């Protein structure tokens, strides 16, 4: 802008002209305007700040509510699918610890504890078809049949004096099927090429023969006759032994 007195070029904020010293009237007005706008601006700013401060708890609560809803949903899903998560975790774990678990499985085999062998595999969700556990491939099938058959016999014969024996029919039919299955599977595997675990398979058969002898009264000859007879005859025999009919 120009000085009204001398016409020299002066700044808008100069209070007096640096050349002639006369008062710059426009600057005073401008500064007054500036102060007014600054004041307004400060007011607006504090209003906005106040408004923000007022709404912060509201926004925080709303965001928290959304997060909590998501959290409850996720936790409920995990709770419902816990078995699945646990199953996957155990499976991954059993692959990671394959050496340790294989050693443990061999310990069970060495001790002749084939029910423990099966229970350990089941509890740790050992994936039988993975290369880490393929060495036991032939044993899984026969051992699970062995364990199931012993369970059936155990359930059928081990009861107290005052037992109501609600599941007697089930126990008898379970024994009937599982004994038949075990010897069928054993007969099939027996003819396959031998592997280093063959001795455990043979031991399982010997344990089963013994269990049938001491708990079901089937010595070698009687067992062969029993296995060669019809299902009806087998059932009649088991009823005789287990119920005394």
């Amino acid at each position: 802008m120009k000085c009204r007195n001398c016409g020299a070029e002066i700044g808008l904020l100069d209070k007096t002209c640096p050349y002639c010293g006369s008062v710059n009237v426009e600057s005073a007005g401008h500064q007054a305007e500036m102060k007014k706008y600054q004041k307004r601006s400060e007011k607006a700013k504090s209003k906005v700040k106040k408004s923000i401060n007022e709404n912060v708890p509201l926004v925080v609560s709303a965001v928290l509510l959304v997060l909590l809803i998501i959290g409850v949903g996720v936790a409920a899903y995990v709770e419902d699918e816990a078995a699945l998560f646990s199953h996957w975790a155990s499976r991954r774990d059993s692959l990671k610890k394959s050496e340790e678990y294989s050693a443990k499985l061999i310990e069970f085999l060495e001790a002749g504890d084939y029910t423990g062998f099966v229970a350990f595999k089941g509890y740790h969700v050992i994936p039988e078809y993975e290369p880490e556990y393929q060495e036991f491939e032939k044993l899984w099938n026969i051992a699970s049949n062995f364990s199931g058959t012993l369970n059936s016999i155990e359930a059928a014969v081990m009861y107290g004096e005052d037992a109501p024996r609600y599941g007697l029919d089930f126990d008898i039919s379970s024994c009937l099927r599982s004994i038949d299955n075990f010897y069928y599977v054993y007969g099939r595997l027996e003819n396959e090429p031998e592997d280093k675990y063959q001795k455990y398979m043979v031991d399982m058969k010997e344990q089963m023969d013994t269990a049938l002898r001491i708990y079901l009264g089937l010595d070698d000859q009687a067992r062969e006759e029993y296995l060669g007879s019809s299902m009806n005859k087998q059932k009649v025999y088991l009823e005789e032994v287990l119920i005394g009919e």
Partner: protein
Amino acid sequence: MSKKIILGILIVFDIILGFVLLEKIGGAAEEIAWIYERESIGPSDVLKYLDWESYGDVASMTRAARTGDKVKDENRDLYLLGEYADMLFQEKIFSAKGDADAAKRCAERCADIRATIPGYAVVLDKMDWSIENAIYHAE
């Protein structure tokens, strides 16, 4: 509706959901930690079979406990009863088969369990009777 009322409602919902979330997290953690016990061998099932004196069922149901299953302390006795029945059953097989070492291991474990839970002597005696009765019937 004033902001204060909205804020109040939000806070109430936050608190309620907070409790629900804590409960759900606890439930999920428990489900994962005790999954086998809950899924397969719940203590109520074991108790039911003990009531029915079906000791063979108790034995096979609790078998996983001796192969690494985690069992809550409060249910430990129930699983020991199952293990006793299982060991007893197997001990007779090993003895009859002539596997003296295995039979001895089972017998020792049975003795350990008897010493650990003396309060259940009556139940353990019934289990002994059941196995002798089974062998007697088969002879």
